[in-house]
């Protein structure tokens, strides 16, 4: 990189902005207060949820077919997860094999006859991930990149199962933004924060919606009560 050229371009851009808006205040607190005021309007500028309880609202959104290519079910405990996964695989006549995210709460489960180490780079396979949060407004689950969360796990398989703890389902996207800010304050911001609301889709050929453009064609969200 040509540092000098970079510095010249930077100065040129900042000079042009300042020349165009010479009255701009340098009072950072005043700017922050103005920015915070805008966010107070969010209460009146967001859609209604389908139920008072955030988790119920998320489930109703999915069951109403408002989240593309997505189904959901609720289980009481993590011990019930392998059986729920087995039934999902049977529903789509899939082999009893999937890639399960390598975190203890998933790896320690008794997966019985299911193979949990398949290569997700191959098409037509199943991935299973643990979601950090759910968002009722948009039927979303959220994953954060990290040592135990390869981002590609959520984008390569044709079938994806996301396990969402009921207690982590937030009403609105704004609520997630507050949490993201808290994570940032702790200096723990992950490289990627992915908000996933349905399956990979395209309408690029004649405006017809096709699922599974590059990533999952089918998404199943399993909401776990006891987490």
């Amino acid at each position, binding site marked *: *990189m040509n540092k000098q050229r*970079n510095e010249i*371009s*930077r100065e040129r*851009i*900042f000079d*042009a*902005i*300042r020349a*165009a*808006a010479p009255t*701009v205040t340098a009072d950072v607190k005043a*700017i922050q207060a103005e*920015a915070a005021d*805008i*966010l107070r309007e*969010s209460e*009146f*500028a967001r*859609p209604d949820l389908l139920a008072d309880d955030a988790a119920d609202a998320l489930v109703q959104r999915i069951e109403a077919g408002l989240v593309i290519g997505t189904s959901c079910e609720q289980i009481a405990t993590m011990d019930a997860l392998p059986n729920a996964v087995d039934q999902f695989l049977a529903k789509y006549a899939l082999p009893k094999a999937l890639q399960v995210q390598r975190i203890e709460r998933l790896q320690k489960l008794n997966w019985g006859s299911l193979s949990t180490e398949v290569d997700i*780079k191959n*098409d037509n396979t199943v991935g299973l991930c643990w979601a950090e949060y759910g968002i009722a*407004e*948009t039927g*979303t689950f959220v994953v954060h*990149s*990290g*040592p135990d969360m*390869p*981002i*590609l796990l*959520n984008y*390569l398989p044709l079938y994806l199962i996301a396990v969402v703890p009921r207690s982590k389902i937030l009403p*609105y*996207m704004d609520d997630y*933004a*507050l949490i*993201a*800010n808290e994570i940032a304050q702790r200096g723990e*911001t*992950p*490289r990627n*924060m*992915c*908000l*996933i*609301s349905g399956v990979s889709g*395209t*309408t*690029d*050929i*004649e*405006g*017809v919606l*096709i699922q*599974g*453009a*590059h*990533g*999952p064609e089918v998404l199943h969200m399993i909401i776990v009560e006891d987490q």
Partner: protein
Amino acid sequence: MQANKPENFYQNVKDALAQPDLKMIIRRTTDKAEAKRAEAIANFPGFENARKQGQKVKDHTIKYMDHYLAEFEKNALAQGTIIHWASTAEEASKIVLDICRQHEAKKVTRSKSMLGEEIGLSHALDNSGIERVETDLAEHIIQLAGDPPSHIVWPAMHRSREDVIKLFREYHKDPTYSEEIIDLVRSARRDLRTKFLTADIGISGSNFLLADSGSSCTVTNEGNAELTITPPKVHIVTAGIEKLVPSMAHAIPLLRLLTRSATGSEITQYITFHNGAKRPNDADGPEECHMVLVDNGRTKMLADGMEEMLRCIRCGACMNHCVVYKHIGGHAYGSVYPGPMGSVLTPHLNSLEVANKQTHACTLNGRCEEVCPVNIPLPKLLRSLRAQSWDKKYEPLTNRFVVKAFAALAKRPMLFQWVSSCGVIFMKLCSRKGWIRSMPLAGGWTRNRDLIEPESKTFMQQYKAMKKAKSDGA
């Protein structure tokens, strides 16, 4: 298809109107988008409040752009992102190429970015011998066809299924011989999958830049941005400086507006916030992240009093609802940005001298402003550009003569009425069965459509007759 030039706008329009299926192909997508948007907004009673909030977010950020830009830079550097500044398109493009060369990249994947098109990155990569793989399905189609994009959300909307079948059979390694759309999409999935996983560098745009964290945000329905960015060792983001917002919380209202206005969806399937390079021990992700922040005319828009245009979140609603765009499509504009927003942007990104004709390709019916999610007064901005074009004498001499003649007539009511009545008689002589198929001095109108026969009397003649009838009756 060779990209049209903005200065050849009239010829481009003629060519577009001569394509028999183009209008039908365009309307198939835009009409659907229009209907879906209307439905999404009907289901969101707070939409008007959201628009006002979205406008405030953008106006606030633009007002304090130097503050937020400096904050973004500081926080992005803290995340480990390498920041590059580019005043011009050429500079931006060169920076990206230099990074590719430094890493000896042979293959790069790209997720759809209008800024990438704006800075000419596709051509720059092609000319440098680096294999460019467009990963958005529409961009993949137009890359195979050699077309420029014709819409900012659906860049391949001008291509029919039959076109796609031919292209995929010719270029895909394992093509489908089915004509079903799902099989065509699967063919692209197969073709692109290995390319995603073997690219040296992934290049993306950014829908939003978050000042308080130094993050960039991508919004897609296909998930191709994450597949573009994650596997390669290097991620390059190219973004216009107007993409800034103060924080993630400020991006949320704009996300609600963007997806509803663009496709009529309540939300897009994939929204990802990218925070620099991979952390130590991360399971995957790029080892290096570069951010190219581009001006290319944006600060000039601030200086020229066109800052309202910097609110634009690139949803494409203005073109989906534009009567002119629906007739001529995107290529006729000769610019990366077509339709109403493009007619305002292009004179700043290029020059008003070459792109002034587009500012006249507007009926000023106001639909674009009505549907704009951030209330950009597009008709007002277009009128302002027309005035600038007039002042700078960019209009052809014939136009200037006609406008001056009209102004002279309009100042002399008696003469105006006499000329109008002569005009009506002349038009009646030219008409057959209620329509005028051709008429001297009106070729621009009648070349592609008939002109309706006027009433027998001018407005003033009818008005006077009506007034007289009233007074006689009284």
